[in-house]
């Protein structure tokens, strides 16, 4: 009688443990999806803002065609990438291109006095920051998720139910943080 109770008890405990692990994986996976959606909202906002900025500064920056074109090209390329691994580098390139425009803008006092341009600059800056912070947040959760499905013994449950590791956003932090210097004397 009593050994049976112990065995039954052990089975119930294991079942409860499996359930709680399974649920925690699902919660983390949903959070990752949510964070990814969040990033995409901000990315889309940036794609929408960039043409406005270019339109606004084009009139002033007649001699900076290359800088503006590189932004447009980077934007087109970034819009094509749609997985975390490919999107990271493409977005970094776009960030750098936009920063180049900001750096060149410093040389045009008229631009810096233009209300509309200033507003666009603030909008783009905050969107970029939001992208950067969402990516950090995304990577943090992905790390927690990957860790939780790889450690022993929860890795068994992850394998049985087919939880796969997620890929990180590849970011070059040094490029994101510092606005690059642009030499205008060439």
């Amino acid at each position, binding site marked *: 009688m009593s050994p049976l109770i112990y065995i039954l008890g052990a089975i119930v405990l294991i079942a409860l443990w499996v359930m709680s692990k399974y649920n925690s994986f699902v919660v983390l996976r949903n959070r990752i999806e949510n964070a990814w959606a*969040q990033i995409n909202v901000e990315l889309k906002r940036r794609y929408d803002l960039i043409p406005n900025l270019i339109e606004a500064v084009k009139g002033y920056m007649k001699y900076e065609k290359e800088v503006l074109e590189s932004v447009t090209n980077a934007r087109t390329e970034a819009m094509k990438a749609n997985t975390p691994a490919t999107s990271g580098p493409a977005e970094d390139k776009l960030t750098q291109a936009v920063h180049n425009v900001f750096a060149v803008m410093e040389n045009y006092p008229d631009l810096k006095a233009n209300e509309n341009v200033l*507003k666009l600059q*603030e*909008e783009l*800056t*905050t969107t970029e*920051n*939001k992208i950067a*912070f*969402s990516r*950090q*947040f995304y990577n943090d959760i992905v790390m927690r998720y990957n860790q939780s499905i790889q450690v022993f013994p929860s890795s068994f449950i992850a394998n049985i139910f087919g939880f796969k590791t997620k890929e990180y956003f590849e970011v070059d932090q040094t490029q994101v*943080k510092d606005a690059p210097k642009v030499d205008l004397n060439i």
Partner: protein
Amino acid sequence: MIYDQIASNKRKSFVLVFFLSVVIIAACYFIGQAWMVNGGILGIVIGAGISVVLFLISYYSGDSVLLSSVGAKQVDPHSSSQLYNVVKEMSISSGCATPKVFIVPDPSPNAFAAGRDPEHASLAVNEGLLQLLNREELQGVVAHEMSHIQNRDILYATIVAVMAGMVVLIASFFRNTWFYSGSRRRNNQGGGSGGLLLILGIVFAILAPIVAKLIQLAISRQREYLADASAAMMTRDPSGLASALRKLQQVSVKPTTSNDAVAPLYFIEPHLNFNAASLFSTHPPIEDRIARLEQMAYIK
């Protein structure tokens, strides 16, 4: 670590509410006893009522009480102002809900957060701060306040500020009543208020240092250092906050709106005219905060 912090803040808040309630009920008992025969029971009932009302006000609308006491105005979430953008960025970085954002019409550069949890939090920034700091520095200060929200430091600080502030208010109300009734009684009987005067004197003598101590406890150096460190994590850049602190160290604009109750909540100690300034100066020295942040930047 952060969960320890949250639990400790909740525990402290409970102890505080309990302790203040006992003090209020005791004070009301003595006042009632002195007022009339068997007035002590009535005093206890009134004291308990006051405690409950005070707690409910400070818990559910403590932030609005404090915000309206400094005349803060809410920032429209749809206006794409730089301040709101920066708050939004920090809420993304911390994974917290976005707090309500307020601007205080005060030329002294400062900021504070209040509320009971991240879903019911408010972040107020003085106009002076917005004028003084650039975007990165503002981001550092906002991140510091956001980590107070995340750690639930705001729960304890808000309850202290509102409850302690109201105790002082009630105390001064009783004092005025005493002056009034005291003179009246003197006219009628030519005495009898001596006992009341004595007891009120004792009550205030007990209340004043307790309230001062509570306000002092509301901020601890450790808590501020922790918030600075979390801010550096949130922005991934300690230099913004360090440079903000350096700028704030150099200005000393007298605040026009801040008061004793809100003072401990602020980002840096407001330059108020305290009677006992040394008693209240529990904010960590700005130089220390800068040094710690610079060390973080150096390690990175």
